[in-house]
């Protein structure tokens, strides 16, 4: 348990009031229309969604995860966090395409890119799955806060979960995405400053940069300073093959939409940006901050390793960064640290409350149940959906232990098997809704087979995760590619409309030629300068 002085409580209460009031202040803007409630009227300058990207992806459990991989692997553990680099290419490829489509959500984009029954099935599936996923993330992150409060104050775990999520819901219900993004800005700045303060404090406690380096050397642990300390080509705990697979997944994934689970919250930030340029810079710079933040954390955690080198239990060394803050900061600063943790927490909770509600409102209620609904009604449906997500997250949070293993598996499915189809739907005109839909279904079966069933019956050896990825990609392609070719291409009218609107990259020649024939695009000028 940590003892808080008056000054500590002062920081906590002041920050919570400030964050909540900041969100509620935008009530009038949020209620104007559905576009305001979920996208802040598509008028934000790049730096606002950028801080939102950063704040949303700095959750209560993020320092726990980063502490775990860096304590275990040293600086090479940073590559486990490098999956966020899908934004490197996405910012200038799929972000540009998605922003031009003007879809509210990824589910809606499916009905702009594809047509007919297949498109509607995809939209319904992705919308339902996203409502569920956001509820799960809310429960997961909320429970992390519950555990932290239990560790700090001895509260029952449910109290931390319910208390902070409810405070957050006040401004999300009132102002929607306006409240989310404005609070995210404030929370992002607070969180980044406190991450700097706590990490530098930890580095100082461990003897400063040179102290950490010399102590690691004395302990014969200097390899921890090498981000490229591979354990071999395919063997050991950090093989080169894993590293290269990770780079491909992360970097090439940026050409697609939905190749990473983080695409979905990012898609909302992309559409809330004022222009294509603002959208690109917001995604790029928000992720750059995340990448730099991870490095700052990593050095502080190396400092923690120097202080406590023999912790074997994962649950204990995963608390490395939190322990630096709570055990070494002076009285008065601990409250500031906790206030920053609350900021980190609220930014993630608010983003997922509003995002889940956007799928429920735009893709389920508005599209399927009441297409003629007024803007006022849709804003209210958005609020009711937010409330349902909040209550659902409490239920998920309370049963998290039982479902965590299953859901981590579900996330793995998401990353592995539909990675390539999620790229193909963006870059290849002939890839159709039935191909994409079948890749989701096939992947569900294949991942059970490859990860659990076949190894259990010794038909397949238990493969390392990078080999599972490649195997599922090949097996999946053997199903969805024939289905794509055996079914008709998408309706040319829809493809032309989508092409003219979004100007996708890749293999779109037949559609471009048709659009030019219809006079919707200027004919390709072969002699143009600088183009390829």
């Amino acid at each position, binding site marked *: 348990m940590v003892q808080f002085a008056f000054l500590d409580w002062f920081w906590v209460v002041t920050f919570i009031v400030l964050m909540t009031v900041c969100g509620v202040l935008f009530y009038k803007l949020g209620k104007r229309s559905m576009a305001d409630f979920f996208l802040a009227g598509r008028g934000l300058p790049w730096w606002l969604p950028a801080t939102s990207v950063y704040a949303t992806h700095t959750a209560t459990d993020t320092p726990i995860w980063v502490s775990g991989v860096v304590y275990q692997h040293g600086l090479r553990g940073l590559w486990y966090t490098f999956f966020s680099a899908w934004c490197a290419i996405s910012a200038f490829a799929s972000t540009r395409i998605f922003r031009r489509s003007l*879809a509210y959500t990824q589910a809606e984009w499916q009905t702009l890119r594809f047509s007919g029954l297949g498109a509607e099935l995809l939209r319904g599936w992705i919308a339902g799955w996203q409502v569920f996923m956001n509820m799960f993330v809310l429960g997961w992150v909320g429970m992390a806060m519950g555990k932290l409060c239990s560790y700090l104050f001895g509260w029952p775990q449910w109290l931390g979960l319910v208390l902070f999520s409810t405070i957050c819901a006040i401004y999300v219900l009132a102002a929607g995405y306006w409240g989310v993004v404005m609070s995210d800005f404030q929370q992002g700045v607070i969180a980044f400053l406190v991450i700097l303060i706590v990490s530098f404090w930890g580095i100082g406690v461990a003897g400063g940069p040179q102290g950490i380096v010399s102590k690691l050397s004395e302990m014969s642990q200097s390899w921890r300073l090498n981000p490229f300390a591979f354990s071999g080509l395919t063997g050991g705990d950090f093989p080169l093959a894993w590293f290269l697979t990770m780079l491909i997944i992360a970097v090439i994934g940026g050409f697609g939409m939905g190749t990473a689970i983080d695409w979905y919250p990012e898609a909302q930030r992309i559409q809330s940006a004022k222009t294509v340029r603002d959208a690109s810079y917001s995604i790029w710079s928000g992720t750059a901050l995340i990448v730099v933040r991870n490095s700052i954390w990593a050095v502080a955690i190396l400092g923690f390793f120097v202080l406590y080198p023999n912790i074997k239990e994962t649950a204990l060394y995963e608390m490395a960064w939190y322990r630096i803050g709570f055990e070494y900061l002076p009285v008065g600063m601990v409250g500031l640290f906790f206030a920053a943790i609350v900021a980190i927490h609220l930014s993630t909770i608010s983003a997922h409350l509003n995002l889940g509600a956007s799928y429920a409102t735009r893709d389920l209620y508005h599209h399927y149940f009441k297409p003629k609904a007024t803007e006022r009604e849709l804003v209210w449906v958005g609020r009711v959906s937010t409330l349902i997500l909040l209550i659902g997250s409490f239920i998920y949070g309370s049963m998290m232990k039982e479902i965590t293993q299953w859901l981590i598996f579900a996330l793995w499915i998401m990353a592995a098997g539909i990675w390539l189809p999620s790229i193909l739907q963006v870059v290849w005109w002939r890839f159709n809704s039935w191909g994409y839909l079948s890749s989701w279904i096939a992947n569900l079966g294949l991942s059970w087979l490859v990860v659990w069933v076949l190894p259990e019956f010794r038909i397949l050896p238990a493969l390392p995760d990078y080999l599972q990825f490649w195997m599922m990609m090949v097996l999946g392609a053997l199903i969805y590619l024939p289905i794509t070719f055996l079914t008709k291409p998408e309706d040319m009218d829809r493809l032309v409309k989508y092409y003219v609107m979004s*100007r996708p990259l890749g293999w779109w020649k037949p559609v471009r030629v048709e659009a030019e024939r219809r006079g919707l695009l200027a004919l390709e000028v072969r002699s143009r300068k600088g183009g390829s």
Partner: protein
Amino acid sequence: MAWIRRRWTAEEADRWTREDYVTFIISPLVYMLLMVGTALSLLLRWPGFLLLGIGIVCLLLMIWVIDPKLKAISEDYEIKQRHYLEDLEKIVRWEK
């Protein structure tokens, strides 16, 4: 003719060109350099400062390459956006 083009009309900027592909290569490199460079610099290792410096130069180069194109796309698109949004609402409301 310059290898990297910095003046664009909206129609030309809509196409995927060499400038985009150059950005696709530089951008992930910048992330890598910033990540490794920051960590090693905080440990006062000289390769860290070198990598961080290269990362910042690459970042500026990337903006120099892609920004004129993004500006051209955005300016033109602002005008079209209103019509697209009207169209989109009709699709969602099953009117089209």
